[in-house]
């Protein structure tokens, strides 16, 4: 449901309680030819959108044992090995990543 920002804020604040936050992060191991190889992001799934710290975006296309392959949909020139990677909050696989365990 698309709601107004103020409504979102009200809902967020009504449920808000500071506490333990858990997220997932990955790190770019190698990048080239429009493909980035990433370590971490344990709950990433195929076709998940991922975001890099420099603003680049990618789409997961390969899940190896310790690496994730992502096609870069938007590549920032600053993207390099060592960059941090997260799964956006709207991606289903990131539910664990963005959840606040407070009050659970």
């Amino acid at each position: 449901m698309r709601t107004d920002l103020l409504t979102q804020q009200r809902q967020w604040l009504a449920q808000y309680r500071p506490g333990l936050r858990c997220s997932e992060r990955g790190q770019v191991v190698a990048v080239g030819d429009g493909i980035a190889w990433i370590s971490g992001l344990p709950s990433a799934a195929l076709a998940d959108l991922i975001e890099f710290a420099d603003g680049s975006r990618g789409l997961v296309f390969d899940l190896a044992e310790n690496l994730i392959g992502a096609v870069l949909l938007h590549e920032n020139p600053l993207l390099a090995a060592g960059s941090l990677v997260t799964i956006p909050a709207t991606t289903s696989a990131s539910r664990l990543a963005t959840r606040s365990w407070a009050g659970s």
Partner: protein
Amino acid sequence: MTLNGSTLILEIINFGILMWLLQHFLYRPVQHLLARRQAEIAHILLQAEQQQQQAEALHQDYQSQIAAWQQQQQRAKAELQVELENSRQQALSQLQQSLQAAREKEQVLVSRQRQQQRQQDQLQALDNGCRFASQLLQLCSGAELERRLIALFIEELDGAPESLRLALRRETARELRIETTQTLTPETRTALLLQLETLVAQPLSAVEVISAPLIAGIRITLGGHVLGANIEDELHAFAAISPHAEPADAD
């Protein structure tokens, strides 16, 4: 002249002969002539009467045709008027519809622009609020706030859900990266490690890092998982509220 019997008889005979002659040679031809003439006249009169009747019939026919033409003309004129009126009404209706559509389009455009402006203002206000809170908390935070956040972190680790425990136990990394804004006391460090080892069900080692951007609190990284209870993450969570996002799950 003397009138005697013979003369009278002769005169009568003479008159009779004259009458016969007149009757025979004059009166009959004249009568024939008159009869023929009368017949001709009657024929001519009959022809004239017929012609007059034909003329009257033609005249009536012409009159009726003229009347029909006039009616047809009136009807055509009326139909033309109706068609013109219909065309005018149709054109007027189309014009009104196009004007209404243009008005609605303009209203939608204006509404959308207002909504976009409102969203931009809200996002800007949110950003300003986060900056203000960040600056204020950077000044106000200290050891007490950090201690309370770490205590909250340890307390909530104890009640972490099974899904988080399983996810952490699947991690192959065994080294923790602990970020704080102030050095941990040995007691806190021990309690923290104990709690995490219980959670992961494995022995862990730890690397401590002082990280000022946290403002206050703690962040622990184990492999691909990051656990934290710090001001920076809270502010990021608040700033991440988007007008287009689905409401976040509140577990």
